[in-house]
């Protein structure tokens, strides 16, 4: 049986997914992208093969996506992460929806129609506000491990407003709030709220909403905050960080004439 591989070389992490002809996910992995995209892609591919369930043949068709897609020399094809996220998202939620993907260095709003065709998209402007990089920088400034943000934000008992747009100015604003005695957990919830606001500024966000991306994967409380703000249920796929890689693998399957992915 042939296998189809999607590799999403993102700014922060590289994700790989192997699917089979029945679109079943056989294996996946996430590694840091670092400064060598090719090496990261190879490592993710190797780990995915190693942890794949069942027998996986040596015949692969590889489609690379993400910022580093052109650095994956062993890929058979490339496609942008915008197309791949739409594909992966529609695979899990096959109805018209708006996808909010919050990645390491960019955020995207993608609209797909009832047949899965992408009908529009927006990316953040040339600024990291509202992305994973924003959260990383603030966590670093507050000396909080990035993996602790979600738990801390959940514990906050009140909402504080962060007025700044820019990451650096947000850090300065936080200093003022620290001097005012505001607790770290509330500051964290405040910066989560800032991420929500950035997304709301990008698009009216009507209809069904799906959220994906590494930031969502590690900070599910952010989804709750979006739900509260939008007053509706938000759908999240089982492996939100791998949505682009899944989409890439589905495109790989399509390219080789497999199922109508």
């Amino acid at each position, binding site marked *: 049986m042939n296998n189809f591989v999607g590799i999403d070389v993102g700014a922060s992490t590289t994700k790989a997914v192997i699917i089979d002809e029945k679109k079943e996910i056989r294996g996946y992995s996430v590694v840091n992208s670092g400064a060598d995209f090719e090496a990261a892609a190879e490592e993710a591919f190797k780990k995915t093969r190693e942890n794949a369930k069942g027998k996986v043949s040596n015949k692969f068709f590889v489609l690379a996506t993400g910022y580093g897609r052109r650095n994956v020399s062993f*890929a058979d094809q490339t496609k*942008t992460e915008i*197309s791949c996220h739409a594909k992966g998202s529609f695979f899990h939620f096959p109805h018209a929806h708006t996808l909010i993907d919050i990645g390491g260095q960019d955020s995207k709003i993608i609209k797909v129609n009832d047949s899965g*065709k*992408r009908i*529009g998209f927006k*990316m953040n402007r*040339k600024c990291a506000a509202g992305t994973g990089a924003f959260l990383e920088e603030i966590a670093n400034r507050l000396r909080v491990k990035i993996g602790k943000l979600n738990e801390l934000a959940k514990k906050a008992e009140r909402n504080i407003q962060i007025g700044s747009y820019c990451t650096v100015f947000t850090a300065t604003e936080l200093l003022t709030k620290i001097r005012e005695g505001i607790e770290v957990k509330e500051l964290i919830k405040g910066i989560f709220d800032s991420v929500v606001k950035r997304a709301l500024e990008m698009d009216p966000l009507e209809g069904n909403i799906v959220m994906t991306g590494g930031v969502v994967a590690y900070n599910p409380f952010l989804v709750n905050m979006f739900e509260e703000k939008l007053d509706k249920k938000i759908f999240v796929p089982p492996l939100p960080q791998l949505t682009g890689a899944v989409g890439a693998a589905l495109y790989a399957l399509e390219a080789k004439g497999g199922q109508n992915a």
Partner: protein
Amino acid sequence: MNEEKKVAIKKIQATGMMRKIMADYFYELDKASKEGSPKIAWCTSVGPAELLLSLGFLVHYPENHGAMLGATRTANDYIPVTNAIGYSPDICSYLTSDVGAFIKKETPLSRAYEGIERVPKPDVLVYNTNQCRDVQDWFSWYSRELNVPALGISTYRNIGKIENYNLESIVQQMKDMIPPLEKISGQKFDIDKLRHFLSLSYECTQLWKKILEANTAIPAPMSFFDGTIHMGPAVVLRGSPQAVEYYKVLLKELEERVANKEGAVEGEKFRLYWEGMPIWGKLRDLAEFFISLKTAVIASTYCNSWIFEAFDPEDPFMSIAQAYTEIFIVRDEYYKEKYIEEMVHKYKLDGLLFHDAKTCPNNSNNRYGMPERLEKKLNIPALTINGDLNDLRCYSEEQAKTNIEAFVEQLGAK
């Protein structure tokens, strides 16, 4: 196989002739600057150039110089110099790069043309605010620095229907300029000379229009990126027989391409509109990128902005006022949307690209919801690219290219 494919931009054979007439133009200005005669006027690119030519001035266009600073990717060496004397990085980067180059006593002209060391020294500075207020501030800086008079026309802006009072004001302002200009040039105003230069400009403009309209053919013979280079003579040599002769040659070449079904983009699959300023430092790079995507950017507001159909030698002042007022940038949102809509139909376009130029709000038409309105009305997609005309700090290459590629993928999706 996943490297960006290397592609070649098809050479336009007339380019050699254009280089020659542009070189002659810059050397003539340089000679006048060194000898003090004829007198030199600096003029905004859609300023009253024909009036200046009729009074015997040679005309230098700082915006053309700004574009050269952008295209040679030297603008970012100079913008900080002007920022440091109090001009914000958020204002026109033509202004900040041009002034910065002047302060540093450098110009791309000296690299392109042996023997030219400086931009030509002005005897007078003449602007028209039809494009923006920045041109006034730009010329005012030189006026103070060089102790040279700056004369200006203030144009009504955001105009829907053009009324007589819009034009009469401009006619009067042009007429008011004549006595000081006569004094500086030492020549008396002669309306027949004005008619002569206006006739030449009109001929130039008609040819330029036909050249752009050659792109209604499928495949389109010339890309927007080619157009931004080949419009040089329409900007700086309008009113000259050289520009007319050049555009006859270029038009013939493009007509041959059309007859042979030879497109600027091999295997043209999609046709796009470019709204807003070029990203001068990335022209070649973007041209190649679009070729690799088999996507032709073939119509634009920018290149069309040097079509002045109203010019009429029988009624010179009123027709100049009309021509320089009816251009896109002066008009209201309703007019602009209607204009783009007509372009979409005329050029059979599949999508719209809006360039949000950080330092050029007047020429960035995405900021008040126009792409979204046009998407709904025309049922074609629009994409906004963040960048700038000259300041490459405002342009993220990877982000822009991913957006463009995703947009083309969207056009191609079944």
